[in-house]
């Protein structure tokens, strides 16, 4: 199974589906410790991604992610917009012109994405942000990359991101809007970590699809 542009486009489509499907859930998470907009923002952003995809179909995985980055940057707003925008842009840059993404390149792209989030947001692991999903995902991806199977890399990343998101529950936020709540932020999942996990799961599903008929 190859992670080519078909996979990348499918990933973005399934991401859009996931954001629409989990919109209320992400709003609800953000309502508890933020300002009730994360699901709305992500849904709006990925709808814009779909539109861009229809307007100008990309030719490489990197181009697909770059297109997504631009759409997210200009339509999501809030903290998540620039953070995801940077993440996708850095990943796209890492992928370069490659027509197919192998396990190694995939793990490098995920690492670049995470580094982009950290560079923009300056959050550290444990601050109860999307970094707490990205960082374990990157660690798991790098480990899995040794075996050379990109699908396994994706699965490892998604599973680790999911665990990372769950692990934000007890944390006290130190970055982003939830940090204003201090101790009261504990006991709730970080919305951005949750959306990161959903997006990485969509990447796995896209790879499954790409393996079978579309």
């Amino acid at each position: 199974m190859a992670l080519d542009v078909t996979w990348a486009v499918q990933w973005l489509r399934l991401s859009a589906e996931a954001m629409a499907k989990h919109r209320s859930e992400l709003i609800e998470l953000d309502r508890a410790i933020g300002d009730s907009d994360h699901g709305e923002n992500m849904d709006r952003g990925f709808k814009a991604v779909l539109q861009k995809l229809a307007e100008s179909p990309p030719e490489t995985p990197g181009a697909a992610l770059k297109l997504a980055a631009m759409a997210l940057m200009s339509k999501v707003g809030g903290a998540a917009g620039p953070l995801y925008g940077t993440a996708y842009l850095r990943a796209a840059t890492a992928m370069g012109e490659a027509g197919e993404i192998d396990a190694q390149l995939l793990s490098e792209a995920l690492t670049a994405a995470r580094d982009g989030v950290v560079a923009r947001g300056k959050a550290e692991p444990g601050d109860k942000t999307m970094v707490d999903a990205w960082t374990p995902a990157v660690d798991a991806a790098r480990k899995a990359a040794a075996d050379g199977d990109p699908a396994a890399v994706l699965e490892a990343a998604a599973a680790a991101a999911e665990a990372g998101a769950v692990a934000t529950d007890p944390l006290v936020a130190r970055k982003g809007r939830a940090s204003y709540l201090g101790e009261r932020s504990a006991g709730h999942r970080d919305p951005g970590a949750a959306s990161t996990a959903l997006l990485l799961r969509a990447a796995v599903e896209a790879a499954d699809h790409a393996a079978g008929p579309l």
Partner: protein
Amino acid sequence: MKKLINDPQSVVDESVEGFGLAHADLVTVHADPKYVLRTDAPVAGKVALVSGGGSGHEPLHAGFVGLGMLDAAVPGAVFTSPTPDQIIPATTAVDSGAGVIHIVKNYTGDVLNFETAAEMAQAEGVHVRTVLVNDDVAVEDSLYTAGRRGVGGTVLVEKIAGAAAERGDDLETVLAVAERVNRNVRSMGVALSACTVPHAGAPSFDLADDEIEIGIGIHGEPGRHRIAMENADGITDRLLQPVLEDLRVDSGEKVLLFVNGMGGTPQSELYIVFRRAAQILNDRGITVQRSLVGNFVTSLEMQGCSISVLRLDDEFTELWDAPVHTAALRWGI
């Protein structure tokens, strides 16, 4: 959720369009990407001020576009900061060559989006400077948070820096004025009820009939702590004390006292709060030289208020009194 809206997704579009229709003498509205300009922008030789942020805080910011205040406002989705693709054209549209100041409330989203926009506008040859407004003393421990939020003080920064720009100060001077206002203003807010974000459809937090949230921001986010309902004087004391402590304003000094409604509180109640706050300041030998009471930095229909105190000197007072002509603040013209 009952709101005078047509569709949660079109609230900002339609509201800003209506604003443009009602105030066509003052502003020009650009629909896509969305931003609001002074009709006479760019004003030759003048430093331009651009602010923006999530919608739902009206009249902030579009209500402050006009002579003596902002040159452009950039409204995001409700409670969501605007994006660089809005901020950049607004910035270039108002630049007369004298440079542009971004007045940014200190929220991660606003900071990141304005940062990106400033970088790109700079790359297009506009001199952009940024002032971060962070007057909210409710955020106590800024080392372990995203830092103090920009709340009520934002209006005062916009008015006073706007007057400095209007009188012809250059970019660095206006920036210095804006930063000096920010350093001399502190605010704190309370919510008696939550607000409902249109696209969310549910109140932004749940509050019992006998509870209030102290130290709220302006995005419907819960505050720092929740206490049992108190009377207006008690609540005023709770808001004003940390403000005065943090600002370290002394007997003999002069201040501007700003009681801001969060949107759903009747004006009569704001004046009850103002009364108590003015009495406390008076008792401490602090002169309330200027005052502002009303809904200026709101959270949709939230019930509650914030109190801001700005330390005044002669320059601030003069700039405060300078003519302003916007939809929400107007005098001297």
